[in-house]
């Protein structure tokens, strides 16, 4: 991050500050002001919004922030991102990567999946949430359509875990360059390996970290 520019960076830091206290209105105002002041768009994005979410993510992981607070911060960050979007060079957002996420066919548990999706959004990833009860065909179609970097599968029932294997296989068969990650309370690392998924995590912050890693390789 550029250290210079004195006051400007200070103002960008204010954005981060506003995100951290989940003040959506202020984030939008500040981002608009920075754009008007011709601050570098990349700096607003990185030093303002993304850095802020990194801080929020860390505070959440350490137990300092509660889930609703973290989600509100993510919402504030997204509001800022919306303002910024028309000014971003094409692909700058997409470069961060798109994630297609859903709960697998036969399974309707979505509390954990929603949490993972929201945290990913908060981390600046583009997330396409397909919802619950999603079969292989829909996952493959969405992955192609949205040019996804990662497909994330959630399952909470041992009876629907085998469906994960089917979906991972279908994605491989479709020959699309996309990584698959799996999770949900009964899913284990060993199971993820066994079905040939590219990653597994026990919780939402871990899922974000994992996705970032997979997208950067």
């Amino acid at each position, binding site marked *: 991050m550029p250290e210079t520019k004195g006051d400007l960076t200070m103002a960008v830091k204010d954005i981060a500050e506003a995100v951290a206290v989940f003040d959506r209105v202020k984030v939008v105002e500040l981002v608009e002001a920075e754009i008007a002041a011709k601050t570098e768009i990349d700096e607003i994005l990185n030093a303002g919004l993304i850095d802020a979410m990194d801080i929020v993510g860390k505070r959440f992981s350490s137990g300092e922030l509660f889930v609703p607070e973290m989600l509100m911060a993510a919402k504030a960050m997204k509001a800022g991102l919306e303002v910024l979007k028309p000014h971003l060079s094409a692909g700058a957002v997409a470069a961060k990567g798109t994630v297609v996420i859903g709960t697998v066919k036969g399974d309707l548990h979505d*509390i954990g999946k929603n949490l993972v999706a929201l945290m990913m959004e908060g981390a600046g990833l583009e997330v396409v949430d397909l919802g619950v009860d999603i079969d292989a065909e829909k996952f493959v179609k969405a992955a192609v359509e949205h040019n996804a970097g990662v497909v994330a599968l959630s399952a909470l029932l041992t009876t629907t875990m085998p469906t994960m294997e089917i979906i991972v296989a279908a994605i491989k068969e479709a020959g699309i360059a996309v990584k698959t990650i799996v999770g949900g309370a009964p899913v284990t690392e060993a199971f993820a390996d066994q079905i040939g998924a590219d990653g597994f995590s026990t919780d939402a912050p871990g899922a974000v970290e994992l996705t970032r890693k997979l997208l950067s390789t």
Partner: protein
Amino acid sequence: MNRAITNFDQKMLGSIHNYSLELLNDTGIRFPNENAREIFREHGFRTDGEMVFFKEKDIRMALNTVPSSFTIKARNPAKDIQIGGDNYMMAPGYGPPFIIEPSGEKRNALLDDVHKFCKLVQTSQYLDFNSSIIVQPTEVPQETAHLDILLATLLMTDKPIMGSSSSGIAAKDSLKLAELVWGNTDEPVMISLVDSLSPLQYAAEMVDSLMVFAEAGQPVIVHSSCSLGSTGPITIAGSLVISNATTLAGICLAQLINPGTPIVYGLGGSPTEMKTGGYVNASPEDAKHTAIVTALGRYYNIPCRSQGALTESFCLDYQAGMESAMMLTTAALSGANLSLHACGTYGSMLGMSYEKFIADEDLCGAIKKLMQPVEFTDDAFSMDMIKELGTSGNYLMEMHTLKRCRSEFFMPELSIRTIHNKWLEMEPRDITERAAGILAKRFAEYEKPEIDPDIEKHLVQYVNTRKGL
């Protein structure tokens, strides 16, 4: 008295009911099954897309046909259970796909574990009926796992069974197997758990199984629960209204299909762990729901279900004991008629433990004793003896004491009641290791209950055929 768990007067219960009616009428409940909506429409209900709307009179009519108590037959008639009234029936863990070992390690549950737990249920002094997923066996094909479990509970125990509600097909399998045992399913021979999805909806598979069981007149536990703050409002009042409305809608469908279908009314609500988004299963808020659900059960005059000896712990520590006891004691004292998860469940209902099962049995026994009314017979007052002994008595020397010394008090199997040096010298002293000793004895003393060899053959045949063997 205005203790937090007893302050549910008719007015408060009435307001929960009225707000539920408002939701049922204005917002409706989502039933993603066309055949279910068809039944509602035939009875004049308004539907819109997948939403079904209910009027007060619909709910009133449905509630009118629900029996206030019923009997579930066991393979051994001496073990039939009565659901409703003052009765409190207990079943072990439901659903965990993992076993938590004494070392703390977790491993996948296997069919062998189902069999071992069946032995414990059969030899249990305190458990009254089986669970349909005592653990989820992970190594067998999942589409037919329910058949493996049903077969085990029918052959290895002679206590009442739970039917499988994981799909319409699984429900039909449950009925088929029961027919092979009882010749028909005219009377209740199982009970099954149908969970709604919060907020305000049902899953298609659950509705399918509800419909199959209702047609056969087999009892159903209709249960709704919100994760407070994620699938429902963070406040108990708001979540209660959602859950009550959803449960009432399910009860209504069952009564339309087959008026008089036995129902156990269930609602729960667990806090969302605000630091992680996790589901917290053993908390004062959960226990409060238990107290409220029993009050609402009485309000509607329907038997009610509560959660059992739940804990968020993963070993036999203070937390496991404290949480399990809080949950089960609240259920017992506030008048629940039935609890699943009474024995064996660890953290968030995801893991079963053999050692916890043994420890929970002590808790179940203590609670059943606690619930028993105090005996006020002449023999219990024993006035003659008291007068005779006056101030000089040593009651240990009396026949009255001798006659009752093995039966009067609750005797724990696992908990210790000894003096400090004896405890220090105890081998093993660790509670988990002591539980292991009791387990070994229980497995050794287990005997397979008698069954007509023809029936057994047919049951096995049915399951094998369904599994394509």
